[in-house]
């Protein structure tokens, strides 16, 4: 019997007011696999990430973690399962140093006081594994480059030893060299057996990194592709809607609802 996927979503729906943002969405992510989540603006990518990370829980649908049905209602639930999220705006404190940001909200204490030595040691170890150019651990975050900040944000998400990492547009604000560094990093995380869900607008990144791609269009699945065997054009046409891989939205609505 094959091992069940790390995370599987079936029939996930999410409404904001009167707007159906996600309708019957399915998704599977296996350990040691990078799945790209693609779609035009407003296709529901970020909402899907929020559903999985517990920020905006699903209205309906089934979420299975290693084959077991789970309920993700709060960010805490996702974190307890081993799901970590790196948001597009990173959500770091500019005035705190690298160590402070990494351990924010889960500081190590010693005799009631912050144990800066231990936190700095662990930060150093973690960052050495992730990047070749470790930033000054005591520099406030505003003084780091955007690539370094991205590395810190990813390192922060890895601190709790997650099994699944959600990356929302990790390379959108980065230059070429920094992008390569982040892509290398994601590659190494996959080799370590993590499941990664990568949201990206950049087909280059997707081609370079992802094993499979899931396309969302207007809040519905619009095809799953094996990135290595599918042409870029095919994927793009499914993003733009030139190729409809599921019944049209109107037709579906008439029959189903």
């Amino acid at each position, binding site marked *: 019997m094959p091992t069940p996927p790390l995370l599987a979503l079936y029939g996930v729906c999410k409404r904001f007011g009167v707007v159906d943002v996600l309708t019957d969405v399915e998704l599977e992510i296996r350990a040691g696999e990078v799945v790209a989540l693609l779609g035009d603006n407003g296709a529901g990518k970020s909402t899907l990430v929020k559903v999985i990370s517990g920020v905006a829980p699903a209205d309906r649908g089934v979420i299975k973690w290693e084959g077991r049905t789970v309920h993700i209602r709060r960010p805490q639930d996702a974190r307890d399962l081993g799901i970590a999220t790196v948001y597009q*705006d*990173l959500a770091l404190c*500019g*005035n*705190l140093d690298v160590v402070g940001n990494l351990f*924010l*909200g889960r500081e190590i204490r010693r005799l*009631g006081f912050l144990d800066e030595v231990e936190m700095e040691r662990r930060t150093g170890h973690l960052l050495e594994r992730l990047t070749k150019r470790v930033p000054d651990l005591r520099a406030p975050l*505003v*003084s780091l480059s955007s690539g370094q900040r991205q590395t810190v944000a990813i390192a922060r998400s890895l601190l709790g030893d997650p099994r699944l990492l959600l990356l929302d547009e990790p390379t959108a604000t980065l230059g070429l060299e920094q992008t390569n560094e982040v892509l290398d990093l994601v590659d190494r995380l996959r080799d370590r057996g993590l499941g990664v869900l990568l949201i990206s607008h950049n087909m280059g990144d997707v081609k370079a990194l992802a094993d499979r791609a899931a396309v969302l269009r207007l809040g519905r699945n619009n095809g799953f592709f094996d990135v290595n065997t599918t042409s870029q054009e095919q994927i793009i046409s499914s993003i733009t809607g030139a190729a409809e891989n599921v019944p049209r939205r109107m037709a579906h609505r008439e029959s189903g609802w």
Partner: protein
Amino acid sequence: MKGKRNTADNPRADLPTPTVEARQPHRRRVVARAVESQVTVLRRKLGAGELGLLPVVLVLVAVWISFQSLNENFLSPRNLSNLSVDIVGTGLIAVGIVFVLLLGELDLSVGSISGLAAAIFAVLNVNNGVPEWLALIIAVLAGTVAGSVQGFSFARTRVPAFVVTLAGLLTWNGLMLYILGTSGTINLDENGLVAKLTSYYFTNDAAAYGLAAVGSGAVFLVSYLDNRRRKAVGMRHRSLPAIAVRTGVLAVIAFAAAYVLNQFQGLPLALLIFLVIVAGLDIVLRRTHYGRQIYAVGGGVEAARRASLSVTRVQTAVLAVSGTMAAIGGLFLASRITSVSQGSGTGVLLLNAVAAAVIGGTSLFGGRGTTWSAVLGMLVIQSIASGMAITDTPAAVQFMITGGVLFAAAVIDALSRHSQEAHGRA
């Protein structure tokens, strides 16, 4: 402190050690290297816009030199000793303001809360015969409660803190006038506990020197132990001479201050309490989980929230701290004049407290600053006031000069923030 450390280091590097001639060049090299590494760190920090306490120290030195050249009594033990007591009342209020500024907010009610606390104490103790210690505790707790109420309203309603506390300014001032009633001015017991707060001096020389020794000893011990742990796990650490140089400079300043105080009446109780509170709250801010949360909320509310910090609790607690500190400061101010009147806690008190925190280098944008900036900023403000009094300059000029210093401090703050961000973009 950083600036002083640096300038005062160099003469120490040339200290002769005639008894062990063979080791002298070696030791000198070690010290020189320690000084050098300090300078490198300092230069990097300055380049990145982390000015810390350097500007306020420079301003303080400049103010002291100017007034000393105008009137040689300015740096007399008597004047400096009085100065060290005069800064305490407003300085304690400024410490609370530092907490609020760390969130990037402003508390306008501290003046009124300080007056309210003093009035509550006076009415309970003098008019109703409540024991001093009990009246003191109730007065301080009243400040805590007033601050908490404001903090909770601010955190829950998301009305900016300066508006909530502006309403507080009026409310607490009205409450104070109501409590004082028709009595107008209430004189405190000249020999009572509260009067002693600012009139008691430890005349024994050992007190001031002891405080200096304990203070620098503690700083040395903490950095030495910290360093030893870093060395044990193979992390970047300072050499022993570097630590010695740092604490050495601190000790020189501390013992010089103790010497000056002992030339007059000894260590003032008020100064001792002030320094203990400031040092204690500094440890709370920089070394505890609670303090880290304050910096985090000041650096980014959204980031703090996503890191599952309770922003509401932090904001409420911070305004509670500033209310408490305002009440304590108000009692010291009342102690200085041994009376409470309808004018208590009004006038330039609030403005001076905010100005002290900002002049001391606490950022108006939140997330940067220490409690020591309240001490240094208050020293600058009070030095200007005292220098003006000594040189018979009209108060009008005093306001203008203090205003200029405050403006300069705000500009330095904005520029250093800008330079930090530019540093990141490069």
